[in-house]
């Protein structure tokens, strides 16, 4: 099961990422210093057939359609972070799930948690250990954008990956 999923993801990586631009936004805590020892190489465009490790680790956000799960276009990013965590067992990550403002604040905490949990599951599949990644939710409490419009809401439906030292 695990193996099959992994190869499915690899296929997604090989064929799914070329045409889709990946978000290059910084994490929510953009004022924070980069974690020590984290590669801060110049951004590399993800090209088909390129090893996951060369995808820029500065990409830290996964965006969502309303209520939906992780889109294929973010899998290379998650694969890169999963691999990095697998190779750096001392590194820890906080995954913060976020929601748009609509609906119940507490239900949105749960939705954000579900999003963060999806990212956690993916990173563990990619080789991170449970101890390295903690999925948490900020619900609708820390919006990146505060207009009442879909353009804004889509920025707030997001999971951010923060390495220790960044939160």
């Amino acid at each position, binding site marked *: 099961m695990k193996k099959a999923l992994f190869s499915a993801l690899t296929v997604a990586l090989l064929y799914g990422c070329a045409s889709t631009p990946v978000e290059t936004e910084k994490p929510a805590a953009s004022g924070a210093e980069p974690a020590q020892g984290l590669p801060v190489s110049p951004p590399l465009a993800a090209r088909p057939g390129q090893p996951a490790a060369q995808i820029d680790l500065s990409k830290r956000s996964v965006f969502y359609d309303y209520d939906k799960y992780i889109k294929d276009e973010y899998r290379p990013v998650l694969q890169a972070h999963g691999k990095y965590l697998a190779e750096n067992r001392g590194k820890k990550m906080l995954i913060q799930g976020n929601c748009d403002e609509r609906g*119940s604040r*507490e*239900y949105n*905490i749960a939705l954000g*948690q579900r999003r963060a*949990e999806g990212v956690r599951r993916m990173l563990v599949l990619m080789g991170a250990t449970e101890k390295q990644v903690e999925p*948490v*939710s*900020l619900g609708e409490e820390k919006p990146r954008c505060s207009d009442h419009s879909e353009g804004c809401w889509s920025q707030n439906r997001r999971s951010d990956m923060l390495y220790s030292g960044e939160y």
Partner: protein
Amino acid sequence: MSPRTFAALLAAILLLAGPARAQLTIEIIGGGANQIPIAVLPFAGESMLPQSITEIIEQDLSRSGRFRAIFVGGVNTPPTEIAQVDFPEWKSRLADAMVIGQAQRLPDGKLEVRFRLLDVIKQSQIGGIAFTLTAAQTRLTAHKIADFIYEKMTGERGVFSTRIAYIVKQGPRYELRVADADGQNAQSILISSEPIMSPAWAPDGTRMAYVSFQNKKPILFVQSLSASKQPAPVANYRGSNSAPAWSPDGKQLAAVLTKDGTSQIYLMSPDGGNLRRLTVSQAIDTEPFFTPDGQSIYFTSDRGGSPQIYRMPASGGEPVRMTFEGDYNVSPRVSPDGKILAYISRVNGRFQLMAMDLESKQIQTLTDGLRDESPSFAPNGRIILYATDIDDRGVLAAVSSDGRFRQRLGIQAADVREPSWGPFLGN
């Protein structure tokens, strides 16, 4: 005077009278039916008190939607005894009831306020009390007098001397505040640069459970209102810790944890001990709320594909689905008499407050806002406080549970949200 003019005038008076900084101001929208006309006469000697006690009483009664204040101008010497009252005059002013009283300083330096509630038609006394107080207790005494009058005249307990809690966001600053039910006398319980959410009063009114994000994730706290700083967390497990709800006896706290995967409901002692899991699903289970008899818990779950409201035994067990109309029904709160379920429903993209009669299962839409949320019943069940927004600013609003009477409570240049109405004091 039309209700609109009256509301504008009242809002203007409150704006002028309130301290400059960030008090809630109240605006009344629409009037209730069958309001009792009442004349609250100035109390003899009340100028020795720091606030006008009769003004607070009159405002309390008017704001409840159950009373209409009768003009009391032109009284030269306020009567203090029933024998001094010119009943035909008050009858001609169409008052059904009237309040007279006096304030005086006692030999020991304390103050005394005594009042009488009179039946204008029968020309008799309905009741009266004498209070001994300090100057600082003037406002509370006024609320207690208003509670007495409300109960005598309506047969229901008044909530004027109860308190409300709410969250204020002003720029990057979050505050958990507690205020009198009229929004005055607000005090900060907690100030943080990170969000605070889901305040929940302990049934004894001395403690508050809430969620703080100060450690970049939701963590659950229970804080004594007399405490000057944040205590140790009661739930700080891996993942998120949120949605606190007290059992009616105050001995248990239901909350939502994600330590075992998805958001599930757990029970614990108010100190966080004796933790046990209550729901077992692959879905989101959140927003627990105890019924007043402590036997059941209402909660929100998307186990059926969309968020809906369910009820289960407070000891856990098979849930029963309660809502079927629409694909988004959340935030269940049960009235203190256990008869009404208030909740938020998405209707045509708008989030509105609904009330379900639990016996007949009839549903009434109580509000017409775009983003109404976080309902909270007054302890007498008569009013539901909720959060809404006007011109992009969060404000609190209140609606009578029959939907007839509404008011708004806002603070200039701040977002006010997540109201929680406290219990009766001194049960």
